[in-house]
């Protein structure tokens, strides 16, 4: 959908990601604003944005696998854990710099995801969900109990601070630049991927795997590719997490996180890269807002049972998400598209 009076005179225009001058200006302006955030924000807020950035990377991967290729994954948090350990072990045990460990963590987690994707040859939907759920239980257990001399087992692992030349990246501001750069880069890659032939093959498999096969798409291969890409993103998210927190444990992330990632993806809007960004922002902001509200309430009404504010927090959160699924099941991105269309076509809707 485009503004009135903007016609795609040729396919090139029609097929570009950014089509109008306004879109270019907004994108560049947005990026400039984003990278100057440390000038205006406190360390506390930057820390929250860093956490959010890491979640966005994990959700981007999940969006490609589940939102585009239609393969459900209940174990994304476990894959993030794999990435965190891969990166931590490469830097601590092998002395690699963070900048090399991060992409390698992505690739090795991609490989693990690939292996857990193999059952997708035979099973679909609910049954596939079970095999990814298995990853969620197997992986932390392995980390906690196998070769604990390497992984640190239940005691966890201290992770070295990344360096850039002589600069030690040990502040929220420094990590902000690292994380946000990675988020921007991976968003662009995700957008490119879904925009082109591989993205179409993914959606073809999601919408009709029988037809996809009849149209020359090697369905199994593309399912595995989607698993690889999804866990590559998880691996990068894990690497960022490890070097941002500088301490990891086998249970840093649990099944709850996997479910949250799915929730963020659904709220953002399945099958949309924008959704993979606004979903986490919305959910995280809501969560933080409610935590703050609950704390205020606990402080004001000191006579209330101590657990009540927390319970209300969880309940309100649940209700908001339920309302969302009931009234806007296609996610925030869809609402935004509708709004854009209405704005652009006013006053002539044709």
């Amino acid at each position: 959908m485009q503004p009135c009076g903007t016609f795609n005179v040729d396919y090139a225009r029609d097929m570009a990601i950014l089509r109008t001058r306004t879109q270019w200006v907004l994108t560049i302006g947005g990026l400039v604003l984003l990278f100057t955030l440390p000038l205006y924000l406190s360390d506390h807020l930057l820390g929250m944005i860093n956490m959010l950035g890491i979640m966005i990377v994990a959700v981007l991967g999940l969006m490609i696998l589940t939102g585009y290729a239609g393969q459900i994954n209940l174990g994304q948090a476990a894959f993030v854990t794999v990435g965190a350990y891969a990166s931590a072990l490469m830097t601590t045990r092998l002395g690699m710099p963070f900048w090399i460990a991060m992409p390698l963590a992505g690739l090795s987690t991609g490989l693990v995801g690939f292996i857990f994707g193999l059952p997708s040859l035979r099973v679909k939907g609910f049954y596939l969900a079970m095999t990814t759920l298995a990853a969620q239980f197997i992986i932390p257990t392995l980390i906690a109990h196998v070769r604990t001399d390497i992984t640190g087992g239940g005691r966890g692992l201290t992770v070295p601070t990344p360096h850039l030349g002589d600069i030690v990246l040990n502040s929220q501001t420094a990590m902000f630049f690292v994380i946000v750069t990675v988020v921007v880069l991976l968003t662009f890659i995700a957008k490119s991927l879904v925009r082109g032939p591989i993205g179409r093959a993914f959606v073809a498999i999601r919408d009709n795997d029988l037809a996809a096969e009849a149209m020359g798409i090697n369905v199994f291969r593309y399912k595995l590719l989607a698993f690889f890409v999804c866990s590559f993103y998880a691996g990068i998210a894990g690497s960022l997490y490890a070097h941002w927190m500088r301490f990891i444990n086998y249970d840093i992330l649990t099944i709850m996180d996997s479910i949250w990632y799915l929730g963020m993806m659904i709220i953002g809007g399945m099958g949309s890269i924008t959704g993979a960004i606004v979903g986490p922002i919305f959910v995280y902001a809501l969560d933080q807002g409610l935590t703050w509200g609950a704390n205020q309430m606990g402080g004001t009404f000191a006579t209330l049972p101590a657990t009540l504010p927390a319970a209300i927090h969880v309940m309100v959160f649940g209700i908001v998400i339920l309302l969302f699924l009931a009234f806007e099941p296609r996610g925030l991105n869809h609402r935004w598209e509708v709004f854009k269309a209405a704005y652009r076509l006013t006053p002539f809707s044709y």
Partner: protein
Amino acid sequence: MSAGDVRLRVQKVCLSFGGVQALSDVSFEVGTSEILAIIGPNGAGKTCLVNSISGFYTPQQGDIYYKNHEITGLAPYKIASRGIARTFQNIQLYSGMTTVDNLMAARHIHIKPSLLSSAVYFGPAHRREIQHRKVVEDIIDFLELESIRKKVVGMLPYGQRKKVDLGRALALEPELLLLDEPMAGMNYEEKEDMARYILDIFDLRKIPIVLIEHDMGVVMDISDRVAVLDFGRKIAEGTPEEIKVNQSVISAYLGDAGF
């Protein structure tokens, strides 16, 4: 027919599901330049035959050759990338995609994308998209799909979806086209249009077409040869004129409307 003139050879194919014998000993050939119609009453095994050729079913016995290479038992995606395209009797589109994207997705075998070349949508990747979009737009023009170019196909009326299904098969640039009842459920005008498209495809693309169809009027009008299936057996084969007067065909169809 000499070997060079044969695009597809189906040889003594038998296919059964448990106790149901869907195809028994079916043999026929498709030349490099003909429209072959396959007709037969409901449940005769026509769709099973298409599914066997396109790799969805593997016959228990018999062989299928395409351009003199055996393709029996190959995976459907391999058969498609060798140049055999098909449509589906019960339309199987990518319902969440637009018309353009349905057709673009069928360019897959010609794009052969790699992960690295697709990860950065710039320069070469963009030019490649434009080049394939051109092919797709030509098909959209040909099938008069302009008005639904950007519509999500799940919402389209039946007749339009049938056309998109055909367009998607054409986007593969096949060298053999299998059409499983492309006119089923259409009104008279839509049928006329579809018949015209099929003849135009045959004329312009110079590819052989296997047409499965119930409407005898259409079959007699546009096909060069007709093969008749009944209870999984081929009971007759010949020109439309020969088939019209063939006794076993008449008795197989006895009481069948339209004959």
